[in-house]
């Protein structure tokens, strides 16, 4: 079944479903439930269908007239007639790039961890090129540097930890500069790794006095580790030591016994196991299944000065993220991003992270295909949750307008539009509730949520 606007029986009503194959959202949902909405054959076909529907809709604003016309002349004739005075092919191409990008040569910074998979792989696998962009992905030494280089406009866009664009927009640890997140990179994909010597000390309540590394203060890693420790009765500010350590130094520090463990992005966790230095205590997925980790970020200024480039970039990232979400592509991706030019890590390590069949460091082989997953949609409720944690741990003092900040930074509306244009199905709302370690979070009541925590920094 394909989206055929030249089918007399089909409806072209604008209230159709997002994928364009069904008459109404309800019907789409039904189809999705029964046999999952069939993915569209190729991107070009998908655009062609959308353009053809749009043209038909313009020529015959009334459905009845269109149907009568199609019935009397037949679809083939209609298509031929239509393409005579409206070149469908050109329109399709024009739609596909939605106006030429203002800036074609772009630089995107990334940190070499598997969270950046969509951003990195889009270069060797040609996702940027397909949008008419010439993107150079540049490896960067650390989060502070990536922040400064993006603010300095050396990078047009960058891979950032999901809370960083919020922090930058609020002026935490930097001058306040409006930043945006058009797409989340990965969900899950982190882990708590402990040194081998703590093999028999798995209960977090016994961890008093231990030293843990996190990649950055404004990171999901920081919030998740603090959350995990606090749920087990430890005050992360007084009972343990948390240190910001760049990911590559974590394994070296763990080997040197400078730290007892870390909540770090993958491939770092798996790398510690691969080198026999540590073992995986839990995956971050066990704290919050489906948590965001890294984001694709750009300054608001970039969006206003180069809206078409930005749209093309968002399309490329959304596409790449969708591609990375499919389990069957993961092996190929691992090979594409392993060389020194990209992540620079052994292929085995990346494969274990991406395919989810991994050594746990204690002699067992585990399988969890959702160890890391990719989902581009920037849920604004994610941003609200991060803001509650920023307040909880004293990074934000005073009141904060959760919704306003979330909506400023997490561009759910724009991404929804891009996804719909691409023929994908964006979720109907930008807020969803979820549960972290069994405790549910209602994005409508962030202050109640915050007040419900016993362990927090007294302000």
């Amino acid at each position, binding site marked *: 079944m394909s989206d055929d606007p030249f089918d007399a029986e089909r409806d072209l009503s604008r209230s159709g479903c997002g994928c364009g194959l069904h008459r109404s959202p309800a019907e789409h949902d039904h189809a999705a439930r029964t046999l999952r909405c069939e993915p569209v054959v190729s991107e070009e076909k998908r655009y062609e269908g959308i353009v053809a529907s749009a043209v038909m809709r313009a020529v015959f604003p009334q459905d009845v007239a269109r149907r009568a016309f199609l019935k009397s002349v037949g679809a083939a004739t209609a298509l031929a007639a239509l393409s005579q005075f409206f070149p469908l092919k050109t329109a399709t191409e024009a739609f596909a790039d939605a106006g030429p990008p203002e800036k074609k040569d772009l630089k995107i910074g990334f940190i*070499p961890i598997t969270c950046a998979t969509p951003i990195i792989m889009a270069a060797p696998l040609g996702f940027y090129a397909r949008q008419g962009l010439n993107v*150079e*992905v*540049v*490896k*960067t*030494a*650390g989060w*502070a*540097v990536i922040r*400064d*280089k993006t*603010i*300095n*406009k*050396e990078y047009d866009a960058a891979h950032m930890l999901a809370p960083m664009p919020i922090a930058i927009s609020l002026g935490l640890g930097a001058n306040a500069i409006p930043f945006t997140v058009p797409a989340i990179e990965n969900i899950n994909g982190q882990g708590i790794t402990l040194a081998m010597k703590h093999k028999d000390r798995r209960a977090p309540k016994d961890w008093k006095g231990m030293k843990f590394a996190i990649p950055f203060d404004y990171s999901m890693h920081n919030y998740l580790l603090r959350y995990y420790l606090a749920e087990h009765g430890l005050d992360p500010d007084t009972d343990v030591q948390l240190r910001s350590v760049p*990911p*590559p*130094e974590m*394994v*070296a520090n763990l*080997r040197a016994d400078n730290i007892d463990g870390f909540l770090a992005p993958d491939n770092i966790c798996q*790398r510690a*196991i*691969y*080198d*026999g230095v540590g073992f995986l205590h839990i995956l971050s997925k066990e704290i919050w299944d489906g948590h965001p980790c890294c984001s694709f970020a750009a300054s608001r200024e970039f969006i206003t000065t180069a809206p078409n480039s930005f749209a093309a970039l968002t399309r490329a990232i959304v596409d790449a993220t969708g591609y990375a979400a499919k389990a069957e592509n993961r092996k190929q991706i691992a090979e594409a991003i392993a*060389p*020194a*030019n*990209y992540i*620079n*890590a*052994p292929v*085995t390590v990346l494969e*274990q992270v991406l395919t989810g*069949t*991994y*050594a746990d460091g204690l*002699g*067992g*082989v585990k399988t969890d295909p959702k160890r890391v997953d990719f989902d581009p949609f920037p849920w604004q409720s994610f941003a609200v949750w991060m803001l509650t944690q920023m307040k909880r741990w004293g990074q934000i003092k005073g009141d904060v307008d959760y919704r306003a900040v979330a909506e400023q930074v997490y561009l759910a509306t724009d991404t929804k539009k891009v996804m719909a244009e691409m023929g994908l199905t964006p979720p109907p709302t930008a807020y969803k509730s979820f549960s972290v370690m069994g405790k549910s979070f209602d994005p409508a009541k962030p202050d109640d949520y915050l007040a419900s925590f016993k362990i927090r920094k007294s302000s």
Partner: protein
Amino acid sequence: MTLSLRFRAAIVSLALLGVFLGVWHLATRGGGATATMSPEYAKLMGLTATQGKSAMPGPLDVGAKLWEHLKRPFYDNGPNDKGLGIQLAYSIGRVGLGYLIAVIVAIPLGFMIGMSPLISKALDPFIQVLKPISPLAWMPLALYTIKDSSISAIFVIFICSVWPMLLNTAFGVAGVRKEWINVARTLEVGTVRRAFTVILPAAAPTILTGMRISIGIAWLVIVAAEMLVGGTGIGYFVWNEWNNLSITNVIIAILLIGLVGMLLDQVLARFTRMVTFPE
């Protein structure tokens, strides 16, 4: 007898190298304890864990890797992976530029300080405070104000190499023998001419010593600066390989950094000898 002394020294050097390599080889031969593990688990693990291979590479590993790099020093696999030759060229370029700017600033300023006791006294507190600041401490400030990472790296080189040159120039100029200056004065030589024909040659050895110290520091700092900013250069290479925990490549980089540093030092040592005069 000198030749034979040299000859004997060379033998001792070689013997020391041999002993060092031998100890290194033996120490990293591995054979550490390995836990028994199932074959499917072992397939997912690295050599350190499966064969008890030492995490430190032996001299043979390093030699093989070095040969690999030497065979193709100028490859370019994209923005994040370039050959060692290219990386070294980037680093030397940065050091050269930052150092040159430092020379242009430090030597005239040093002359002023050396020739005028007033300026010397006035600038002294600033110099004393600024001199001991670690050049890398400037990095965040530079990134923030200059807003360009490669210019920031060059600025850091400049700021670290300027002080030894400035102080040595000032010291050298101030220490020119009074008799020579007085002779020039009695012959009614103008200030500019006096600076170039009397003071400059007299102070040149001290100035060049300062320059020699500076180039050493600049080369030390570039590696750290590039590790911080990333992108290109030998420091970035070290960082990138560290990321992959490839100690072999890090050792090779260390070796090359040492060799290039020695070469730079030797070049300036030669210049110093050229301007040295017997009194």
